[in-house]
């Protein structure tokens, strides 16, 4: 199985290297769909320049990366392209290993249930054969590495790739059952972009399931394990934040990174839902609506945790999708991460009713983004409404896709 993976990796690296050398790289790096104010490479370079001059990189309003990222690139700026390619490859390998392990668990469970004769007779089609499952990890790696969204994100040197990598390693650690590493990577992911905080619930549920600890509020072992995982997570978060403080010797990065994410001051158009709404709104309502918009990311965690407590990995997928739809500065790189998980649930596709229409919506929107941007910004014959209309359509496409996956999960369970 390693040989095809190596082939995929080689193909992906070739494509990226070729694109880095082409004239398209500049064009892609300027696209608002690919680079947001949070993760644009231009801003990293600006931050590095400020740091070299001995000024705090956060003193301007440009730089919103975390201190660890800036120190990473402080040493690796010469090899930035290499770093981004390696990050993508590492993400894919981590996802590959994680899904391989996950499939083993699913297969064991399936076998046990068949032996116990728990399945209804007409679900035979839904049971995954080892043959089908054999290729799923490879498909996941392929979906991540050769997804045009990932490729563009990598060519634009958006630091989103690094966030994705951290989340992939967090998933790997969770599936391997290492509570400590899982907590550390989750803390890193939270530190990087805040929203992965909501992945805490699925990770905890998965670890509990793995330890065969029943999820009951009265059970003592449940609370013990939860406390253990929470404290691991919080401790590592505190350590990382303190480390950042000592690196720069100031707390400037807290408002500059997390304040920036939460209060959404930069209304550059992107593929998300925030910019148009807040550009149109009276200033004095903005606090209220910021709360309303931001709560979307966190709000669904609780009902999903109750509903999907038996399927924490699916919960993880849905939560990743919700983050990438509702976060304040989404880019196509975020979407690529949850799209990579689609092959894992390929057996649900027979329930997916409008998958063709929805895929068409996403493809058409991806092409219409630059067209309408051109009409708005360069030709001047369209305006922001045109672009936002496509943003809305794109997000409706994503939401209904996730909603259908969720419904199918339910109907598959009932079946």
């Amino acid at each position, binding site marked *: 199985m390693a040989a095809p993976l190596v082939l995929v990796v080689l193909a992906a690296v070739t494509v990226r290297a070729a694109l880095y050398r082409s004239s398209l790289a500049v064009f892609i790096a300027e696209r608002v769909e690919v680079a947001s104010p949070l993760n644009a490479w231009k801003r990293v370079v600006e931050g590095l320049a400020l740091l070299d001059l001995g000024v705090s990189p956060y003193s301007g309003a440009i730089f919103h990366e975390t201190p660890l990222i800036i120190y990473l690139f402080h040493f690796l700026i010469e090899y930035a392209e290499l770093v981004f390619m390696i990050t993508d490859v590492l993400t894919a390998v981590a996802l590959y290993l994680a899904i391989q392990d996950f499939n083993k668990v699913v297969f064991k469970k399936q076998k046990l249930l068949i032996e116990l004769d728990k399945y209804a007779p007409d679900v035979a089609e839904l049971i995954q054969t080892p043959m089908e499952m054999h290729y799923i990890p490879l498909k996941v790696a392929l979906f991540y590495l050769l997804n045009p969204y990932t490729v563009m994100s990598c060519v634009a040197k958006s630091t989103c790739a690094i966030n994705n990598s951290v989340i992939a390693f967090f998933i790997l650690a969770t599936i391997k059952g290492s509570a400590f590493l899982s907590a550390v990577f989750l803390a890193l992911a939270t530190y990087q972009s805040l929203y992965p905080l909501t992945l805490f619930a699925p990770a905890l549920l998965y670890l509990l399931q793995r330890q065969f600890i029943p999820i009951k509020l009265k059970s003592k072992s449940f609370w013990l394990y939860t406390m253990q995982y929470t404290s691991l997570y919080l401790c590592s978060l505190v350590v990382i934040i303190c480390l950042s403080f000592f690196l720069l010797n100031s707390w400037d990065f807290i408002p500059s990174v997390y304040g920036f994410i939460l209060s959404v001051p930069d209304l550059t158009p992107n593929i998300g839902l925030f910019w148009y709404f807040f550009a149109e709104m009276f200033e004095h309502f903005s606090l209220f609506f910021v709360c309303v918009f931001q709560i979307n990311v966190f709000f669904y965690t609780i009902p999903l945790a109750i509903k999907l407590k038996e399927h924490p990995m699916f919960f993880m997928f849905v939560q990743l999708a919700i983050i990438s739809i509702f976060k304040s500065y989404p880019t196509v790189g975020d979407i690529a991460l949850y799209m990579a998980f689609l092959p894992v649930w390929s057996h649900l596709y027979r329930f997916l*009713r409008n*998958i*063709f229409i929805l895929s068409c919506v996403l493809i*058409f929107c991806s092409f*219409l983004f630059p*067209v*309408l941007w*051109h*009409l708005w910004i360069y030709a001047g*014959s369209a305006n922001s409404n045109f672009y936002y209309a496509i943003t809305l359509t794109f997000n409706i496409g994503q939401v209904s896709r996730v909603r259908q996956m969720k419904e199918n999960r339910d109907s598959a369970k009932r079946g």
Partner: protein
Amino acid sequence: MGLLSDPQCRRALGRLLLRLNTPLCVLSYLSGLAWFLLLPLLAPRTYLSENAMGSTMVGEGSDLGPRALALARDFGEHRRREGGIPVSWLSHTMFQLGLEVHSQPFARTLPFPDEAHERYLVRGTNVFGVLRAPRAASTEALLLLVPCCEGGKNEQAVGLLLALAGYCRGQIYWAKDLIFLVTEHDLLGTQAWLEGYHGVNLTAMQSGPFPGRAGAIQAALALELSSDVLTSVDVAVEGLDGQLPNLDLLNLFQSFCHKNGLLCTLQGKLPPPEGPSGPGYAQSLRTLGLMVLGQAGGAPGGPHGLFLRFRIEALTLRGINSFRQHKFDLGATLEGMFRKLNNLLERLHQSYFLYLLPSLARFVSIGSYAPARGGLLYLVPPILISGGAGAALYLWDPLYPISDPKSPCTPILTPFLSPQARGGLLYLVPPILISGGAGAALYLLPVRGQAVATQHFPVGEAEAVVLALIGIYVAGMALPHSTHRALSGGGQRGWMTLKLLALLALALLLTCLALLNFSLGFLLGVTLVPPAAAVRPGGNRLPLALLLVLTTPGLSLFMAVLLERELLEAPAGLGEAWQRFLGALGQGLLQEHLHGAHLSPLLCLGAYPCWLLLWNVLFWK
């Protein structure tokens, strides 16, 4: 979403679509066409939206005629003496008129010789004078452009420009700088000047450092006069890639024509007599057709066309001497327009940017023509995809029951449901790769390979490019045979999936084009949609093959040339049309290299591969 999520409803909808597929396709196609033909009747009158230009009255005081004539004669003499644009005389005259004068030399080597204009290595100089606004800082500017072509044309326009500059210098009310620009080698000079002024280099133009600037240009007028005597003015609106100026600029010009009793034409056509029936309709439709053809071609309709890309609203006015009774003076109209534009408080944005013109006084806005596009482009592909192409809605939905053998969809769905259908899609890779490769070859080879071609064949470079283009185009059509020899197809499911992909690509292309350049999208849709709907392998291939060949983008271009001559009421024979077609191919390629037009890459990399995929479907084994 209820309609599509409820299985019962969905099934009924699917059946309905499959059963009514053909009538629905025909109906939507015909309704789209009919809507387009009705457009001249739906066009309301134009009106000026911009307040700053509407309410203020301007009384023009200039009488430039005699002075313009004298200056034009002088200019003509100096020009003949120098054999090119008399830079020093022009600079001197402008300086004496009190302008700040600069000149910009430029040079450009064309990718291959331009036979229509007989040029290859181009060297020229643009001369321009800036009249600084006495009442404001130099933050905004207006521009008058006179392209100075070869052969003594347009001398009168230079005279008029100089006379107008002299008159404007004496006025005190200017709040925007006025730029008076004389360019050499028409479009090339304009391109060089625009790139220099905005400090960018979009094409391989070589020009020195740009000498002097005024403010951001708000509006520009280009002037072409063919003789001293002026009986009517033709106005050109289409810009590069079908971009159009804000309708208010045209409205402004039209209101001045009205005021000064100037006779104006659009596309060389007089305004049709009012009243929607009879000859008025035919004339409107003809004007509309010419505008659609011109916009679809993507070539600028005049030197103003290059300004639009820099977000400068611009028009070209062509003075025409058609030996009528009335003679006009354009000077007062130009002065009036500049004075009104001088009152602008913000850039022109109130009126329409996306419109079609059946006559100068009437317009069809995007809201009216969108249904024509909707009928043709948005409705047809989804129905095709859902129905005829092989029930793509159900492609990934094998739970769909086939219990009822009499249902009309069963024969279409069967190949998708059979157990063999669960194969890979590898057999689709060769046709797609080959179609894409043929498109890339068509795009890259003619210009890059001209040196090789001239070595091996006894043809000139320009001919080599055009002939290579045609050669590669035709050779691409022979490809399906070789692809199938290499790989056996996937049977019925194979061609259906291939057709589905071709339709998706076509729909994507047409959707994007309908937004970027409506006319081009519409024409491609009108020609490509019927064969795309009808194409299928097996049976009698001849009529379908004929239909496909007739609608191939290359032949559509030839038809467009014929149609244009027909609409201009100067029908061309096949021989002349062929010459014009060859010229259009060469010019199309040149436009891309000289001005960055998007037509040839779009056709080579978009429409042609799409069409080749359909061609592949036809010859699927």
